């Protein structure tokens, strides 16, 4: 009897232990990059030889990194605002209006997600070359709105579907016009979906390499594309330092998002 109970106890502990192990293993490459950024050597060393923050200073005082960061932020902010606007309008229409062929339209809106990014990128490269938009800010932003739109639509759809449609109708009956009713009643109700969609959109845009690398101009590149090119040409602790800054920013972003809207529910 006690042997059986002991066996069950071990069986009950194996799964949590395994889960924890895999969760930790998932973070290993992240930890390695952070450690590598601290080394005093000119080459990558893990564990680091000595501890220094010199690589961080080197990266932060490098104007080309700051340029790339500013450009990435600009693109991500504009793309996210546009994506949120047109994505919310589309999701709202799909739920609250009787759209003919709504299922086909929803599938179409999600299509950029399943299409290989490389294919979308080379198609855009050819297209932009033909119409003379290659290398412009607007062409890159349009591409980013395309690849972020599915994330916004998905998060907002979930929120609108669970928000009570009668509340908005009640506001209309009480004399509010369509815009006021939407902004004062529905918008606050779907805020978690909007926030989650906005965060996904911002991260997808800011992190994108496979599409951007085909579309950026020689003079102006995004931060991830710059890091990608740097890694291709040979790795050094400076890359680990800029990567660590990205790791910290992403982690901070996620913790705030979880506290704010319970981000894990939207993944």
């Amino acid at each position, binding site marked *: 009897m006690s042997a059986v109970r002991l066996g069950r106890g071990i*069986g009950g502990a194996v799964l949590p232990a395994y889960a924890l192990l*895999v*969760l930790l293993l998932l973070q290993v490459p992240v930890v390695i990059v952070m450690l590598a950024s601290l080394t005093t050597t000119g080459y990558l060393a893990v564990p680091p030889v000595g501890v220094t923050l010199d690589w961080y200073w080197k990266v932060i005082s490098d104007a080309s990194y700051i340029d790339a960061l500013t450009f990435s932020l600009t693109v991500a902010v504009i793309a996210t605002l546009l994506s949120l606007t047109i994505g919310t309008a589309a999701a709202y229409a*799909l739920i609250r*209006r009787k759209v003919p062929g709504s299922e086909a339209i929803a599938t179409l809106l999600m299509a950029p997600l399943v299409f290989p990014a490389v294919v979308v990128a080379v*198609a855009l490269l050819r297209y932009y070359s033909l119409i003379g938009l290659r290398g412009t800010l607007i062409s890159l932003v349009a591409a980013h709105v395309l690849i972020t739109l599915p994330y916004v639509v998905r998060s907002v759809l979930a929120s609108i579907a669970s928000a009570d449609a009668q509340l908005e109708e009640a506001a209309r009956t009480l004399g509010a016009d369509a815009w006021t009713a939407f902004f004062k009643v529905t918008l606050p109700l779907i805020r978690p979906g909007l926030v989650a969609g906005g965060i996904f959109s911002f991260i997808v845009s800011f992190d994108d390499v496979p599409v951007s690398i085909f579309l950026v101009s020689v003079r102006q590149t995004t931060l991830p594309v710059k890091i990608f090119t740097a890694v291709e040409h040979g790795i050094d602790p400076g890359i680990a330092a800029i990567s660590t800054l990205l790791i910290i920013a992403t982690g901070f972003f*996620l913790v705030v998002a979880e506290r704010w809207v319970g981000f894990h529910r939207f993944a």
Partner: protein
Amino acid sequence: MTLGRWLNRSGFGLLSPALLLLIAVFAAPLLVLLPVSLHPYVPGRGIGTSWTFDNYLAILGDGFRLEIIGRSLSLGIIVVATTLVIGYPLAYFLARTGSRLRPWLIMLVIFPLLLNVVVRSFGWIVLLSNYGLVNELLIGVGLIDRPLKLIFNFTGLLIGLTHIFLPFMVLVLIGTIQGIPRDLEDAARTMGASRAAVFLKVTLPLSAPGVLSGGILVFVLTISALVTPRLLGGPTYQVMSTLIFDEFLKILNWPRGAAMAFILTTIVLLLIWVSGRLSRRWTVVR
């Protein structure tokens, strides 16, 4: 009914910005790329004007390129298998645990997913290279004398891609397993089934739709991935997407690159179509 009222009633007014965007930067570019794959490549001048199927025929008749297509597909299948085997127990735990920490444990799955893919691949380069941590550890423990070749080959891509796509598999499976009523498992237990039998006869079959959609997702992502295969495979160990990358940005043979792009797209769309049919059949049966 006026056009304005119809746009409002039908919802197409609100949908139009999104639909126009999809036409302008998704449908139109793909339509423009299609003829590129049907023109010959003229060295030094780019895309020719005559029409031909040679780009497709050349790829399908070239051992080097066929091997690369085969490599992409087998990587896809094996990465699906590894993420499924590693991910299922984790997903099961995260779906069923009553721990207060659950949201934060799920965040540990999401965090690497949202972290820049260049950064994650870079971490694997540091770990897997000849003088990387894994080889140093194995030599230090005395398991091997010379460094194992863990990078710029199939092993490196398999490890890197499994790590990158494991979170996708786990998140899909969590959703499915949460939807299986616990009562069903409890009932089977009460009627005398062993834990293993409950898992094999109740939980696993009921989670089959999740396994299918997670598997399709990971397969599609794997054969489309560009950054990880390029960084962990280097310029010589190619897959379909890195080949397309080189054709467009390095070799500048756009017609052959476009043909490869459409072959990749066809494989992806075919798979999604088949899985759609399969999951529909499942819902009808149940």
